């Protein structure tokens, strides 16, 4: 790890000024990903701006009945919050499915959005990686990729986004708020992550020097009947090989509203809009769920060793929506 400066910001303006003045500066939240990557040499910041003491640690109800979640709210506090658990249970479940109790106590909401892929080539600086070292190549395409992307990837990068939380946020149309030296801005989650294309090293649409201050969840009554399910290679404390956030509102056997997002299949949390379109207004049956999954996964481009993810995601869509439909019928 190379040497670096450290400053503690006491207000948002001060933090933004520090981050804007030095392109080598990084905001330090919980540090669970950043400090890890500094140790492996993937990140080599010149200075850290500690934002833990900023007044961004609250969860509040918005005027329209949604939630505003501060950037430094810890994952634990997010998952334990009564309004999150009551109104967006899939979000609480997603956060609880991630990492460990210790890491959730440290990790922040803002940091979770910005965490980097766990692709084994990305985290090993002795390997080529277009995301870490643009133009060096992507050994995963020909190499070890059984956990890699089936949707939205390119020949330049097939890494997946590791977040569980982000999958639920994608399903619930979260909006990311940020502050820069030039003032505040916001990005819907759907626009927050950039497509991979030929530039896998460019991951978010945040302007340079921006500090995430929080996010808002618009009101979503459908979210009250929602679920997050994660499949991984260990029963806990492992990243997903496939996950799903789903919410379903069935009225008289017809899908009134549905939300679906996939995790561990793409470089970003994958909102399954094709599947949602296919389902809305149609019957809430296993056949329809399967057909909708097929519609979404028609765009899948699996590699030699991750084709199982197409089957896995289809099965998860059917299983979780069937569960939600059965519960709604009770």
């Amino acid at each position, binding site marked *: 790890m190379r040497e670096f400066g450290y400053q503690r910001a006491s207000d948002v303006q001060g933090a933004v000024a520090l981050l804007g003045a030095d392109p080598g500066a990084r905001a330090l939240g919980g540090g669970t990903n950043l400090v890890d990557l500094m140790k492996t040499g993937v990140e080599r910041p010149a200075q850290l701006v500690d934002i833990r003491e900023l007044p961004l640690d609250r969860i509040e109800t918005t005027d329209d009945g949604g939630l505003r979640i501060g950037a430094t709210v810890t994952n634990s506090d997010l998952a334990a919050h009564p309004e999150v658990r009551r109104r967006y249970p899939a979000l609480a*479940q997603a956060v609880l499915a991630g990492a460990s109790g210790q890491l959730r106590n440290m990790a922040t909401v803002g940091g979770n959005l910005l965490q980097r892929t766990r692709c084994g080539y990305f985290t090993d600086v002795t390997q080529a990686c277009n995301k870490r070292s643009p133009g060096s190549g992507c050994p995963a395409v020909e190499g070890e990729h059984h956990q890699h992307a089936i949707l939205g990837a390119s020949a330049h990068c097939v890494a997946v986004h590791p977040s569980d939380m982000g999958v639920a946020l994608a399903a619930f149309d979260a909006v990311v708020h940020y502050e820069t030296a030039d003032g505040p801005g916001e990005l819907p989650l759907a626009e927050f992550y950039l497509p991979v294309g030929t530039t896998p090293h460019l991951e978010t649409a945040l302007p340079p020097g921006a500090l995430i201050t929080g996010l808002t969840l618009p009101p979503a009554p459908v979210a009250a009947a929602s679920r997050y399910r994660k499949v991984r290679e260990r029963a806990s404390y492992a990243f997903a090989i496939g996950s799903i956030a789903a919410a379903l509102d069935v009225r008289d056997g017809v899908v009134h509203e549905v939300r679906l997002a996939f995790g561990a299949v793409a470089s970003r949390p994958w909102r399954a809009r094709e599947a949602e379109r296919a389902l809305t207004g149609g019957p809430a049956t296993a056949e329809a769920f399967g057909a909708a999954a097929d519609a979404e996964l028609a765009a899948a481009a699996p590699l030699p060793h991750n084709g199982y993810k197409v089957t896995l995601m289809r099965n998860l869509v059917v299983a979780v929506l069937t569960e939600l439909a059965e519960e709604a019928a009770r």
Partner: protein
Amino acid sequence: MALSTSSAITLHINGEKHSLPVDHRTTLLDALREHLDLTGTKKGCDHGQCGACTVLLDGRRAVSCLQLAVAAEGRAVTTIEGVADGERLHPVQEAFLDLDGYQCGYCTPGQVCSALAVIEEHAAGWPSAVTADVSPDAGPPALTAEEIRERMSGNLCRCGAYVSIVQAVARAAAATQSSNTPDSDGTSHAADAADAAVSA
């Protein structure tokens, strides 16, 4: 202007103040082990992937390997050395000792610190990934063996002492709850869970 790459800081550890200069790169884990001779906190992976370095930060469990020491200034740190009350072991420590909840002992301080937090987090009503209904209206989940396993999963044990560790956490949770909350409801609740874990 070049920024300083080290700072003089004061850490609050187990109720005592320690002033020391730190290289900003120094993690809380290395500050404890290399600079303050508090070697009870272990380094198993140095990347937040094993839990051996678990300490309590402001009362909450955290992996000290990913916590920069300089960023821990002003926060209350409890390490394994601060868990017992003098010569009197904490019920969690007693249970690990009695039930052989370890073998090589290297993950043990982290397991013990984590277990303390698990018991508190459960008492605070936090759900877990195996809680069937996370809604606050569903009431707090019983601290079953399954709940303990999920909540302790951030602490790896290569010797494979998990079975005994879960029993120890259940026993300590029951003891803690019966001493802290004398109401009969809570007592029987925790005791049931402990029995379930032990006999499972």
